[in-house]
């Protein structure tokens, strides 16, 4: 399962970078979205994939016994998703406003500040 996830994550990173290298603004945005998802999945995978064992301490015990899913990694992903949500919402608004001002979707046309 882990190696399958690794391949999937690699594909996501590759797709993200491919999209970011395109000239279209919208594709750039899609690239950024894929990139943040790839990073989240990576954290999820490297923390260890455990199936059906929530990290709960059983009645009477003091610590968790045996294997369990890592709750911290999930908290990290949750935080990262929320942040990505905010930042990407901003990016959507920005690209929309930029399109209205510049009237083009082509990144090659945006050389005014280089």
């Amino acid at each position, binding site marked *: 399962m882990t190696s399958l996830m690794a391949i999937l994550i690699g594909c996501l990173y590759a797709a993200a970078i491919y999209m970011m290298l395109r000239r279209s603004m919208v594709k750039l945005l899609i690239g*950024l979205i894929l990139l943040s998802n790839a990073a989240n999945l990576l954290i999820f995978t*490297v923390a*260890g994939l455990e199936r059906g064992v929530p990290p709960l301490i059983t009645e009477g015990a003091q610590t968790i016994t045996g294997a369990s899913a890592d709750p911290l*990694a999930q908290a*990290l992903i949750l935080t990262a998703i929320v942040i990505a949500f905010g930042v990407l919402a*901003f990016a959507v608004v*920005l*690209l929309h406003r930029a399109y209205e001002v510049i009237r083009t979707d082509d990144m090659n046309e945006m050389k*005014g500040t280089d």
Partner: protein
Amino acid sequence: MDMSVLIALPVIIPLIVGALSLVVLKNHGAQRLLGILGTGAVLIAAILLLWQTRLNGIKVLEVGSWPAPFGIVLVSDLLGAIMVLLAAITGFATAIYSLKTVRKRFERFGYYPLLHLLLAGVNGAFLTGDIFNLYVWFEVLLVASFALLIQGGERAQMEGAIKYVTLNLLSSALFLTAIGLLYGMVGSLNMADIAVRLTAVEDPKMVTLIAMLFLIAFSIKAAAFPLFFWLPASYHTPQVAVSAIFAGLLTKVGVYALYRVFSLMFTAEVDFTHQVILWMAVFTMLTGVLGAASQFEVRRILSFHIVSQIGYMMLALALFTPLALIGGVFYIMHHIIVKANLFFIAGMMYRLGGSFELKELGGLYKKHPGLAVLFLIPAFSLAGVPPLSGFFAKFILIKAGVEAEAWWAVAVALFVGLFTLFSMIKIWNEAFWKKAPEPAIEIPAPVRNKALYWTTGILASMTIAIGLFAQPIYVLAEMAANQLLNPQLYIDAVLGGGKL
């Protein structure tokens, strides 16, 4: 209530003040008042924090009483406290400067709340002892900077913002990836704890790989070679007060993160990692200064000089000797004040001369000799003319380079210093000395403004003071460098129960 609360104040004050000034969004007077009071309070807190940290050593606050390494800790070592103080000075100066320069339209769209949020993010990044929390603060300051960057909505701003946003989001994703890999390897997020656990990792090549990911992520944020081009494409587009605080603080957060990570966590293969940083530093210095030489717009020249100055700071980290780190800390202290001030002065040149283009400026020396003197102080300091602050910063660094026998780096550093002087004299000749050109554009009636002169004047006198009283500053930098070179001090402070 013990003094450890002090560590939280530089973060929580701007958050609360920023929230309050969002509530009174439509009341301009209240917003400005909150702007001054809030940044002033942060300044006082930062001074107290640095004083306490210098007196009592590294201070640690376990947020929410969750013990390290499980909870998030805020750590104030000397480097962090110095950075917070510099951020507070820049923030306060920007708030005063904004009183007279920021248009009401921008105030209505939340200029002041964003300024406070930016400060909270910057201070949070300087003080946190948790690598994921560092990521969160990076995002906080990024979001605030995005919104500040596009206030005004002109074409150049939009183009600049797209480059800025893309590169910075890419850097954040790489940072997050690196955190994920690091967490998978050592199972901890507390930086002190990670440092301890990394010594036990059997595969140092893997650690170095992760270190390189951090290096790429942070050097994008710091605008180092080869991924610096977002900075000169965007920093000259927003209003001047925003440019100034960006120029002073934002790239330095990246530099700070590099200093923190490569002195605390990734010190196993110094020969390799710091060699890479050395070459990046050399090329950063060169490309920055050469880029500046080809520009004729004041803010763009200054933007390229930010890049070249970042090279000096990275050079200090790359040499990684006690003297070099002293020089690096000294350099950061000198640079933030000088750079913010130069942008402030560029804004005043625009108000008085009607343009940012050197070709359209001229004759400012005759009309405004006070401004000319104010420009010369930070400009010569940036180039490293004695007895100003930049001279000592460069001198210490170059001496460290000679001692480390990094001849190439020393040669480039000297050459870049010369070229910086050339750039500054170019601005001086064109804007101040040469005759005013036939006014192609209508120059607005110059508004003499005492608040602006006071802001830049005080920053300029700080530049002189750092130069004249270099000894106490040197001692402070020496103590900070000592803490950086002995990460055990940091580790003991954090993992030793958080008690002072």
